[in-house]
């Protein structure tokens, strides 16, 4: 079998992401304007928002692949769901780390029960439960079905979680609400490039993880045959 890293498409993707990543870093540090109120702290926005965006895409994929798995019972969909859940949780963690780093100098406190941050935290906890179920809970085909069900349920719950936290803590509505279309060109295009870079990174990592899961599945198949 051809190695994942020796594939031409992988090399192209890896080089593209590397170039895009360093371009974003250069644009963020040297080109984009410094916000008069937030100073350098505002720069984290170029990484915080794309992380949240990527986590959102990942969790959507967990729900969609869960639905496909339940309908088709094709193991590939379970692998897509599991890999997406892992990456979604990773990007959730990045949101939860970068949020407080920004909040400390701006809000004067590292944590605020702000709706979006809280929703991400709750989703993070739900997905920790998802991994525990996969790790300790079930086995074989049943594990895949239960994971799919949890993925779908968790995603269906997102709007209710978001609205409840939003109404609960009206005083914590401090989250910036930037209208991206009204931003100056340097901010807008750097942000869009960062969004694209994170999305490409997600796709690349997902492909890599799927490759590894596929190999694991093949090895366990061979082991069973022996």
């Amino acid at each position, binding site marked *: 079998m051809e190695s994942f890293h020796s594939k031409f498409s992988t090399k192209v993707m890896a080089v593209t992401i590397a170039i895009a990543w360093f371009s974003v870093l250069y644009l963020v540090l040297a080109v984009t304007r410094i916000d008069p109120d937030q100073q350098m702290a505002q720069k984290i926005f170029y990484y915080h928002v794309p992380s949240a965006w990527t986590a959102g895409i990942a969790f959507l994929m967990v729900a969609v692949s869960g639905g496909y798995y339940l309908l088709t019972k094709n193991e590939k969909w379970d692998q897509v769901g599991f890999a997406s859940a892992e990456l979604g949780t990773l990007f959730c963690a990045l949101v939860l780390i970068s949020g407080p780093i920004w909040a400390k100098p701006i809000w004067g406190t590292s944590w605020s029960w702000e709706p979006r941050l809280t929703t991400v935290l709750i989703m993070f906890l739900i997905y920790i439960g998802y991994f525990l179920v996969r790790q300790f*809970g079930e086995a074989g085909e*049943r594990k895949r*079905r239960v994971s799919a*069900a949890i993925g779908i349920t968790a995603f269906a719950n997102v709007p209710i979680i978001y609205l409840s936290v939003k109404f609960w803590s009206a005083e914590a509505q401090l989250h910036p609400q930037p209208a991206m279309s009204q931003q100056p060109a340097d901010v807008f295009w750097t942000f869009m490039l960062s969004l694209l870079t994170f999305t490409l990174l997600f796709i690349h990592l997902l492909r890599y993880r799927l490759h590894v899961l596929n190999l694991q599945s093949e090895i366990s198949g061979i082991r069973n045959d022996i």
Partner: protein
Amino acid sequence: MNLVILIRKELLLELRSREILISMITFGASVMLLYAFAFRPTPEALREFAPGLLWTVILFVGVLALHRSHSLEKEFDAFSLLLSAPVERSTLFLSKWFGSFILLVISQVILLPIFFLFLQLPFPSKIVPFIGLFILVDLGISSAGSLLSGAVMRSRVNEFLLPLLLFPMVTPLMISAVKSTAAIMESQPFSQWKLWLQLIVSFVIVFGLVGYLIYDYVSEE
């Protein structure tokens, strides 16, 4: 008809042993006792905390019923026999949902007066909205709980997986329940807490529907 028979089965099992209800009430009363000793705030502060304390007790107590409703079926492999019965799996979900709901309601009939007695709080004067709220939130807890309990029932460690999955999942329901209870206790007009009620109803509908649709896949062996 099948649904009625299945709910009857759930309640009959409990009526014969009474193990879940007795555990729920004893556990709930013990937690309330701890609250009464652990917090000695002023009556005003207590009134502010009471809705949150009340709903955490109810959630803890609910987990007992929800866990037991499926783990009981593991004995003598009863669940496999139940699955082989000519009954739709979604009906099975409804029976688990309503069975746990009824147990939650019965336990609260006893636990609520104890809560207000132990914490020396006046019982809310608006009884009808108060009871209506509890019925709706119980429907929400039992719908999400029945689905998740069914999902983890066959695992070795289902007793700790259930709360780990259930607690973050019911966060919006708990927030709405606490806010609505506080509003009712303070005799606020309905328009002030209508929003929370809408969220609770949305939660019940979403989890009721999702459970009804996917319990088939979750319960399959």
